């Protein structure tokens, strides 16, 4: 039974929000993911993931300052909630359990020349 639902991209976003700590808002998250994972992230995909995560209660947001380069629009900063932290830990531990259950021999792959 699934206790916590966290998709792959959602997990990436959660982790990045964690990395950025107090500086996590739309653009910074996007850039961080793009930098660390070298994958393209569209604003749309990111925003809908953030909205989902907030609805699930994994993230909470607060309104930040509005600056000149944003044409006066405020930033929205995200932080991980306690519930979100649990979800991340749960995902991590299930993954670890699974890793541990793999017999050593299964991973000793040889590249055939």
């Amino acid at each position, binding site marked *: 039974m699934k206790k916590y639902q966290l998709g792959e991209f959602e997990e990436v976003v959660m982790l990045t929000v964690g990395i950025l700590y107090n500086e996590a808002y739309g653009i910074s998250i996007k850039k961080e993911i793009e930098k660390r994972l070298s994958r393209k992230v569209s604003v*749309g995909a990111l925003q809908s993931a953030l*909205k989902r995560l907030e609805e699930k209660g994994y993230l909470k947001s607060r*309104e930040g300052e*509005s600056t000149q380069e*944003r*044409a006066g629009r405020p930033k929205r900063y995200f932080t991980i909630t306690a519930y979100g932290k649990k979800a991340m830990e749960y995902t991590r531990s299930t993954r670890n359990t699974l890793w541990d259950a793999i017999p050593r021999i299964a991973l000793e792959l040889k590249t055939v020349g």
Partner: protein
Amino acid sequence: MKRTDQSPPRSFLRFFRWFCHPELRNYIEGDLVELYRERLMTSGKRKADWQFVFDVVLLFRPSIIRPMQPSHSFNQFTMFRNYFKVGVRNILKYKVFSFINVFGLAVAMSLCMLIVLMLAEQKSYDQFHEKKERIYRILSDREHSKAPSATTPFPLPMALITNYPAVEEVTQLTRGVGGDATYNQRVVQMRGYFADASFFRVFGYALAKGNKNVALSAPNSMVITAAYARQLFGDDDPVGKTVDFTNRGLPNVGDGEGGEATPWGSFTVTGVIADVPYKSHLKFDVLVSSSSMKVLYDSKKLADLRDDWKFNYSSYTYVVLAANKSAEDLEAALTDLTWRKKENLDGLKGFKLSAQKLTGITPGILVSNEPTQRLPMMVYYFLWFLAAVVMISACLNYTNLSTARALSRAKEIGVRKVTGAYRSNLVYQFLSESVLTALLALVLATLLIVFMRPAVTGLWINQYLNFDLQGNVPVYLVFVAFALFVGMLAGIYPALHLSKAQPVKALKNSEGSRSGKMGLRKVLSVSQFVISLFFITTAILIYNQFRHYLEFEYGFSAENVVNIPLQGNDHHKVANAFAMVPGVVDVSASDIVPSTGTENGMSIRIAGTEDEYKKFGVLQTDEHFTGNLGISIVAGENLPAEDTAAGDFILVNEAAVKALGYTNPNEMVGQVLDPGWGGSTLRVIGVIKDFRFTTPANGDGIGPLAIRNNPSSFSFVNVKIAQGDLSGTVQQLEKAWKRVDPVHAFKYEFYDDQLASVYRGFLDVVTILGFIAFLAIVIACLGLLGMTTYAAETRKKEVGIRKVLGAGDLGIALLLSRTFLKILAIAIFIGAPLSYAVNNLWLQKLPNRVDFGFGTVFVSVLILLALGLLTIGSQTLRASRSNPVKVLKSDG
């Protein structure tokens, strides 16, 4: 310039703002802008723009898009009740404007409703046949024909039913039945068709008496309609009775006259069609079994067309498609048949057969040789177009007046917005107001229709079209839907425009909104007047053309000539009886009445030459004809009196002399001519002065004509009456007729009336167009009235102050009128050349045109000016006369 360069594509930004969930909008927009600026620095404008667009499009996803319904929809009903209440109050408060709006819309709507009624009535034709979805009429077409013909070659049905499985049933109606049925000395005139036994298997007519399956099988049997059965047999049972039928070749279409009377023998009545008002494109009083035709072939009373594939003018073919076949199968069968019969069709270039669905006949495409007259679809499209123009004009009025009143509504809008109304709420409010107005207009339009219906059904042309324009529930539902649509259409612009008002400005009542844009309203008003001017010019022009045809110089004297159809009687007897009537100058006989629409032709060349045959018009008259109509003989002498050789002589006209290559009429006399139809040669006995024997609308100039004395084809006598007691003489003529023919009613028409009635159709067009022009100008003037009234009202104070300072009445009136006078001037400036040019387009195609100079345009400009000035003047003068004390004292 630099600032705009810095911002992302506006349209996409606006799109984003529109769809984005309000809670997310600011943050995401901030992100987007930040990103955009950054990209602008690194990759340049083009790339940044593209990436921005890309981002916005990718943001368009369910989780970002705002919820469809605003969350505050709990008291919709109360709100709508409020809209309704405010709407009613507004309508009552501004009575003049409401009246102008309601009346204008109602007038235009009634016109549209009339057309809906017409179309609905047309659609109800031929709906009573059980197999109506599978019945097709076969049309035949030749190269260079203007429209396909409803008639088909006689052998077609047999070929279809025997060789093609797509055809389940086929029936053929053949024209040519029209004459007198006699029973016990009672004579009734009937028109109808030869029909075969499968008639009742194809069509849904029910028989009140008789057996459907056999009624039309046996030779010399006939089925008549209930009305005619009553006329002929009274209350007796008609089935099994024998009637004598004398055919007079009465045409099926119209109420024209036939030719010689031929007794066809006796017929047994085998059925009576149920007394139901069948609405069908077919109309008949009698159906004669087509097996009777064989007897008539044998006695040479009917042309035998059984193997004639080329003559396709007399029979109608209707097929029932087999249940599992499609229209394409039928078309394929027809194509195949045409290909197989190409030898029989030798010389008929481009001969084509096609199928037309029975329910698509009325209303349908233009088809020649129709069994009944009816307006083709084109006419409805044209009427729709006119109605749409008027309707749009009325909607523009509403738009114009509503936006003009923006100022008076601004406070209300401001308050509503301040108390939390969304723009969409206001849009709904204004729309509900306009829909309310449209529904009121619907009520008025329905009343107008009651008056317009008799006007339309009373049009001359309606005796052929038989509109009776009764509404039914679906039609009324269409009306209501139409009214709703019109309300939306008229209200959408004001709703969007008025709801845009910003509450702060509106409540502060800034002067800025007063001197608002007149631009759009001016354009609308100008276009209304341009349209009106165009309609007025066209109506006047068509009326002039009508007068021109009426006063046309035919070259003969139709005055005091009465044309009397012979109705099958011997012309000698009739002529002798009439000649004795005092007051009759002379009596002549002819086969047709020239210049009233019927024309016969033949081809002629000089005998013994190999010249090409020339096309001639031909009249069959006796020797009194030329004298009677005052046609002078230029050379030679008149036709000889009737004897065995009289048929060998002809009179020709001056145009014929020219056509045959002579210059002097005298050279022509004595020439022997070879008629193209074969038969004996004709000797020219005299040359007459040219006169018009075709209708002026049928072509310019006068063509060659031959007149021959051929008594067997006479069907009219032409009685010239001395000036004096015309009606008394006609009564005498009637008495004389009764002595010769006690059976048929005396029919007569004055020749000059007949010539005029050819153009009755023109008069109908003038009536309709004149009416539409009237509506268009009324609506345009109403709009102008509304605008001037409003302008005068808003400038009341200004007028008061000016007057106190010493301005004169006229000066003020001019001041107030200036804008509107400009509108009129621009409309005339655009409309006059436009209506001149467009009307010239169709006029150039017409033979014997009336002069269309600037006079006509000038007259219509004068009409427009007079009405426009009256409208403007009535309001501005009133405003300028107002007492300044009262105006300035009141606190507006």
